[in-house]
């Protein structure tokens, strides 16, 4: 993480000012020349000799009262704030986590407290809690409480959307543990920002209580009270108010600045200014990168990301840019549009887009070139469209940017949508992104990019988050769109198999250098570069046809033992929609069941029913012959231990605040309490090795791990409690094929070595092809077909399976392939 000098400096300044003010408050009473109540001179006397800051409304020395007045205020407001946050955070988190009656009850109480006039609430609470500092402290805490509950509840709801919380619950962790260990660390930044301003509120509630006669008995002093009781003499002796006000101001400002700098906002991309000018426009190539060198500034010096890259692209050609992750593919693609992520600096070379040196252009000119000549499709459909914009609004904005007059837009929008084979009726055009499927969202983004017939279209791994069928349909349409004098297409991809069918040329990047480039068929058949060969090999390994033919890892046919997992007549609903209906299957000990099918078919819901995270279901599920309760609460600790969930999204399956060692040690400690700390560390190391990670990963956090490594840690965590069944939810979908392949291989090895049964949900048919065992095709909430993997892959009897198989792209193999009979109706 780049050390940001100014933020750090500001934190030190704020910290020292805060320390000074609190020091003044705590040590003040000892230094005060006069006791706070001693009348020294005429009230509101000016600053002179014995009274350097003049006197206040009682004639007491302002300096002495200032020194004496800080302690009660600081301690009481911090105590009240502490109590309020303790109670507020607990109530807020519980309400968010439990939902249902607890949630409505907590919200109802906060609403009632919020609707009480604050000042009336304060006076009643003090009467109930008794006058004096303790009573005022309690009253202040209760006055602050409702707001804190609402802020914490909202923030907790967001944290709960991450998988690591559900995984912890599925592991049988107590709600208290989940809140304190998993949720609270992630609320810190929200609470800090809120605490800053809440501190101001606490100080003034205490001062008002004091002023109304509820606080400390006179002649005790407190800064807030001093401000209020001396306001009469503001014009006569302003210091009597100005000095305590300044003290309070310093206290609050430094506290807030410290909190702000402790949790800095992420710096947005700041475009450094670059020397203007550029080389002569080159007529024929639409896009040319020449000698492009880009460095990233890391804590230990610059690291080259792109090293003298040369690339051209002519109109109507589709170039696939491939390479292992971290090879600079995305940086090159974005540089073609003149964009460098924050932290990257352009060392040498240039990028020429339709004759313009985009890396040298400034905002307005760059924006005009992009809007006229370029189109861009982002990677993750979930965040590529603004949640508030409807489909028509989104497309309209892009057309507006191209200067298309308002009148002409509706027609252009409909044609753009039709071009990417999406319905162009009003109902669809009025939909919000959350009402579209992943594939539809990517098509909308594509439609927007192509709306003005750009010269160059850049796509950054557009299909990585889509299931195979949707992805291949999208790419086929893309290929067809570029055919008839379409734009030049630069497609960053990681799935070589998909590229085989649609790319004209393939360029392989490794370590920022172009190691190979050539026609797709030739590069895929005879890769020259080492990186190219590794990629093709990994892709070939994923080929279904070859696996089906080859020998599947046969298990010695065990005697028909009692199934570890038996499901009979399982159905599930959400609200009034039926998700699953009449599901039945068995899983023998050490067996493997892959559940495949189109997205939205109910695969994930099935897994959540097994894991106990979806309780709106009927039918029964038996683990080791014992029925499993619907929700988590009804299950015994033993059941929760023997059934472990591995979540889908590696980015959200691990708690960002915890180290790898702590993530694995927690379930391990619960399963094998007899281990002492040293034994525990050793066991963690052994588990890490088992999942193919060496021990130096133990001290890292999830932010420093790649997708594959995170998935392995999630697996290690699941294995830590010695489960009988591993529930894997799309564990390969977010990984590039080479990494996915290694993870699947790991699963297979674990099944052999540990005899753990697997239930793997996936949309990628290559997974069951590698794992073997049995397979079930799930679509529209029903099991269409089930049986051994080999039999379903080669001679499937059900059209759904047939469609799935068609979706899997083939790869030109070096030797002539046996004519695979595949007919498509």
């Amino acid at each position, binding site marked *: 993480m780049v050390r940001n000098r100014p933020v750090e400096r500001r934190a030190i300044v704020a910290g020292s000012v805060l320390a000074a003010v609190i020091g003044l408050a705590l040590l003040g009473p000892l230094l005060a020349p006069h006791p706070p109540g001693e009348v020294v001179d005429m009230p509101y006397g000016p600053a002179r000799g014995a009274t350097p800051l003049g006197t206040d409304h009682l004639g007491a020395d302002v300096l002495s009262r200032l020194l004496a007045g800080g302690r009660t205020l600081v301690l009481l407001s911090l105590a009240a704030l502490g109590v309020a946050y303790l109670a507020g955070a607990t109530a807020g988190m519980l309400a968010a986590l439990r939902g249902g009656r607890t949630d409505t009850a907590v919200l*109802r109480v906060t*609403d*009632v407290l*919020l*609707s*009480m*006039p604050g*000042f*009336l*609430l304060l*006076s*009643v609470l003090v*009467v*109930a809690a008794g006058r004096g500092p303790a009573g005022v402290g309690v009253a202040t805490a209760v006055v602050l409480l409702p*707001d804190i509950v609402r802020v914490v509840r*909202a923030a907790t709801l967001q944290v709960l959307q991450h998988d690591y919380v559900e995984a912890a619950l599925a592991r049988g962790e107590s709600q208290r543990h989940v809140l304190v260990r998993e949720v609270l660390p992630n609320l810190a930044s929200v609470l800090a*920002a809120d605490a800053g*301003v809440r501190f*101001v509120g606490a100080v*003034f509630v205490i*001062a008002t209580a004091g002023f109304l006669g509820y606080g400390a008995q006179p002649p005790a002093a407190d800064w807030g009270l001093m401000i*209020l009781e001396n*306001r009469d003499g503001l014009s006569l002796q302003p210091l009597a*108010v100005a000095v305590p*006000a300044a003290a*309070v*101001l310093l206290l*609050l*400002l430094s506290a*807030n*600045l410290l909190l702000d700098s402790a949790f*800095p*906002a*992420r*710096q*947005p*991309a700041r475009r450094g200014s670059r020397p203007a000018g550029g080389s002569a426009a080159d007529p024929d190539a639409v896009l040319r990168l020449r000698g492009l060198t880009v460095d990233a500034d890391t804590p230990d010096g610059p690291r080259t990301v792109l090293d003298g890259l040369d690339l051209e692209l002519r109109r109507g050609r589709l170039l696939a840019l491939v390479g292992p992750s971290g090879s600079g593919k995305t940086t090159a693609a974005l540089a073609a*549009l003149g*964009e460098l992520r924050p932290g990257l600096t352009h060392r040498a070379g240039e990028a020429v887009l339709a004759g313009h040196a985009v890396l040298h252009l400034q*905002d307005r000119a760059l*924006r*005009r070139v992009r809007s006229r000549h370029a*189109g*861009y499709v*982002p990677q*993750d459909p979930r965040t*590529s469209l*603004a*949640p*508030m*914009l409807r489909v028509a609004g989104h497309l309209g*904005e*892009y057309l*507006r*940017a191209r200067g298309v007059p308002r009148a002409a837009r509706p027609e252009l929008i409909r044609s753009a949508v039709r071009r990417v084979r999406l319905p162009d009726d009003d109902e669809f055009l009025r939909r*919000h*992104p959350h009402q579209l499927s992943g594939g539809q969202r990517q098509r909308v983004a594509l439609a927007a*990019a192509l709306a003005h017939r750009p010269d160059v279209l850049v796509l950054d791994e557009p299909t990585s988050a889509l299931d195979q069928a949707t992805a291949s349909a999208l790419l086929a349409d893309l290929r067809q769109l570029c055919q008839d004098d379409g734009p030049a297409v630069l497609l960053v991809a990681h799935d070589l198999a998909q590229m085989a069918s649609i790319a004209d040329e393939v360029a392989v990047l490794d370590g920022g250098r172009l190691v190979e480039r050539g026609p797709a068929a030739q590069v895929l058949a005879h890769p020259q570069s080492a990186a190219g060969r590794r990629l093709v090999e990994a892709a070939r390994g994923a080929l279904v046809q070859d696996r089906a033919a080859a020998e599947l890892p046969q298990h010695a046919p065990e005697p028909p033992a009692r199934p570890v997992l038996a499901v009979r007549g399982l159905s599930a609903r959400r*609200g*009034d929609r039926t998700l699953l209906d009449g599901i039945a299957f068995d899983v023998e000990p050490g067996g493997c069941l892959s559940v495949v099918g189109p997205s939205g078919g109910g695969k994930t819901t099935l897994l959540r029913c097994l894991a106990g995270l979806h309780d709106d279901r009927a039918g029964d599920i038996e683990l080791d012959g014992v029925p499993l309760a619907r929700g988590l609460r009804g299950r015994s600790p033993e059941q929760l231990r023997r059934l472990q969930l591995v979540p889908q999204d590696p980015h959200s399956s691990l708690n960002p605040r915890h180290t790898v060692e702590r993530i694995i040690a927690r379930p391990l400690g619960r399963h094998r309490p007899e281990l002492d700390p040293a034994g525990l560390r050793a066991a963690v190391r052994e588990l890490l090795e088992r999942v193919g990670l060496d021990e130096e990963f133990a001290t890292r956090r999830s932010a420093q791990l790649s997708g594959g490594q995170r998935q392995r840690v999630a697996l290690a965590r699941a294995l830590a409690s010695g489960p009988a069944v591993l529930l894997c939810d799309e564990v390969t979908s977010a990984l590039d094929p080479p990494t996915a392949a290694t993870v699947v291989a790991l699963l297979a090895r674990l099944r052999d070595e540990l005899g753990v049964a697997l239930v793997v949900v996936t949309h990628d048919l290559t997974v069951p092809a590698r794992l073997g065992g049995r397979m079930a095709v799930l679509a529209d909430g029903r099991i269409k077909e089930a049986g051994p993997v080999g039999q379903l892959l080669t001679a499937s009897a059900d059209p759904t399976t047939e469609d799935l198989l068609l979706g899997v792209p083939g790869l030109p193999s070096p030797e002539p392939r046996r004519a695979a009979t595949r007919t498509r109706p």
Partner: protein
Amino acid sequence: MSRTGPLARALRSLAGAVGTLLAASLLVFGATALVPGDAAAARLAGRAGPERIAELRHGLGLDQPWWQRYGHWLWHAVQGDLGTSYANGTPVADLIAARAGNSLLLGAVAAALLLPLSVGLGLWAGLRAGRAADRLVSGATLALVSLPEFVTGTLLVLLLAVGLGWLPAVSLPSAGNSPLSQPELLVLPVLTLVSVCLAQNVRLVRAGVIVASASDAAQAARLGGVPEGRVVLRWVLPAGIVPAVPVMARYLAHLLGGTLVAETLFGYPGLAAALVNATATRDTPVVLGIALIVATLTVMLNLLADALAGVLNPAAKNLS
């Protein structure tokens, strides 16, 4: 009608709101019963003998058990009659109607200035996060909120009214007409109220804008050639203000419910001053009347905030 249809949800939240109002009124009634002394003592203590006070207490019915009095009040309140003030027997509705109007007016004008200002400043600072402009705005708003409300108000009066004489020092409409007829009366109270409420809202909008501006969607729009102005308007702003909406609703309720210091400092006849007076003189019907208005405002604005959040963040709607 299905259990989760929009109509069912609306009815349920309405029932919730009524429940909250009922609970709030019971809590307020309990509060006034808990505090020592009662309206009769408050009115005549020190000016008439204890036996005359007992006579008045009986006259006002204060010697009945508290739950009977609450039942009596509730029974009438449901029919729209808020009862009469213990202090001088005038109907509570007359006593607080004008003041409620004044407070709503002052609150509305203050909100009309506060909302655009906090969104504008939050957006401006958020788009320049970390740079000098951002630190300036954050520092200034923080300093404003750290100053007590009445010190800010006092400084404003000294400067603009007494010192320069541009504005009236006391925001008091002349007999018979509403503050609307003399708008200059509202300037100083509004400036004071806005200065106090600004900091929290600006900080929240700023945080929201920073996240939204760095989001993939906004980045994709910029790469797609959409000019920065449109990116800010359609991509950054709607997502940016979502976190601030519930807090703004809280401040709105606070502003509309009457603010004590602004009403005291500028002599503005609002609800808060009346509430303080009614609580001091143990005038329970007036306290309940005002508390009901404040409670209704708070509940309505919370419902509005939830609805607005639904509009701004449609995905969240079916999550809740």
